[in-house]
């Protein structure tokens, strides 16, 4: 298993290998995203029982929770990819990190927007200065910072390194920001799902949510892979394998 992982890691360093293997993955990822989204949304929006307090408006969690989860883990992935680039100088890792940034920021924005739409009927206001909301907003600012920095630096290598350093600094700061705003003010309900505890949701509500979470991760992987493939093609455009690919 370990040997296999090490080999996979070394192979991932090769842009050509990555491009070829992901060509085979893409149909599967697309299929899984479409099917998962269809099943999860139909179950969640039509068959899950309405919440006894919030009525039907709770159903937005099938978009909101997966997006919020992903926005946070995407930042982590971006920082890890950046660290791999800083330590081992693997170009692929830098391209992946750069591909993740706008996707993660979009999910962050989706989480904030759906949260606002849900907050209006439930809390009676679009926005409150609550800890969770504020820390998501700050996460969005961190994404913007990384993207702005990458764009501002002209030298390709330096911009990748700068982005990686900033995302690592951000990663260390995320828990500090999270706990300080939580301590400062909180109105948001505690997390719906916890890995360490038995879920408090009814299975009819929970199963579609879990399906949607998995689907969103698959969809995220698809988006990042597509973006990374573009980076690969652009950077390797002078190589013979890309030329052959373009001609055929």
């Amino acid at each position: 298993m370990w040997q296999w992982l090490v080999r996979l890691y070394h192979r991932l360093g090769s842009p050509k290998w990555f491009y070829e293997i992901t060509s085979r993955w893409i149909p599967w990822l697309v299929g899984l995203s479409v099917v998962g989204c269809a099943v999860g949304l139909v179950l969640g929006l039509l068959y899950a029982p309405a919440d006894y307090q919030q009525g039907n408006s709770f159903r937005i969690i099938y978009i909101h929770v997966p997006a919020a989860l992903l926005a946070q883990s995407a930042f982590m992935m971006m920082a890890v990819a950046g660290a791999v680039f800083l330590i081992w100088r693997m170009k692929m890792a830098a391209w992946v990190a750069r591909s993740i940034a706008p996707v993660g920021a979009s999910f962050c924005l989706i989480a904030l927007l759906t949260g606002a739409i849900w907050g209006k009927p439930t809390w009676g206001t679009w926005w409150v200065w609550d800890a969770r909301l504020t820390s998501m907003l700050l996460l969005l600012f961190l994404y913007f910072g990384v993207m702005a920095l990458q764009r501002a630096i002209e030298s390709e290598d330096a911009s990748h390194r700068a982005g990686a350093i900033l995302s690592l600094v951000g990663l260390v700061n995320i828990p500090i920001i999270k706990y300080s705003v939580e301590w400062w003010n909180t109105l948001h309900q505690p997390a719906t799902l916890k890995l360490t505890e038995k879920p408090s949701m009814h299975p009819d509500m929970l199963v579609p949510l879990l399906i949607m979470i998995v689907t969103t991760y698959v969809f995220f992987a698809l988006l990042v892979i597509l973006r990374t493939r573009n980076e690969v093609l652009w950077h390797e455009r002078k190589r013979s394998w890309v030329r052959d690919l373009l001609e055929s």
Partner: protein
Amino acid sequence: MSLVMATVKRDLLLAARNPGEWLNPLMFFLMVAALFPLAVDPDPKFLSKIAGGVIWVAALLATLLSLDALYKADVEDGSLEQWLASGESLYVLALGKALVHWIASGLPLTLMSPLLGLMMALPDDAFPALLLSLGVGTPVLSLLGAVGAALTAGVRSGGLLLSLLILPLYIPVLIFAASAVYHAGIGMSYNGQIGFLGAMLALAACLTPFASAAALKLNLSR
């Protein structure tokens, strides 16, 4: 080590000979704080409630203003290359530069803050908390900001970019510091908040020089 000492000495001397460098952020600090009574409400009762937060926001902005120049001259005149070639630890150098920045910006801000407190009708009990929170909190601002300054040193019009990068990272300091001043003002204990600020200072002093050193190196590859 001697190189770092020499750099610190040189930078302090430069700051002393060029007072605008550290006086301008101080004046900015004063002016920003003066905008709030004008724009919101000059009623002392209201002011005393927001004083701590306003003074801290002004301090934060003033710090950002002076950060831009931290490494710029060194990148432009080649001092940075000399440091890298000398083989001295960049970690210690980054720590030294942050110290210089704090002496030229955070320390004067801290010393001038009681004046602002008077203008903003800060409650008497809150003055020690204001001084203490600025004294412990502004070095964290300098340390974190130095990372941003190193990252943007070679970027044209990096000042605005620097603010975008660094402001989200400043939020925890702002929260705990403003809360310390506020709680002191209503007669509550503020040891906890100062303790958190101290923990952040320890963490920032240990970790941010690594990031600064890595960021400084990438200024060579442009």
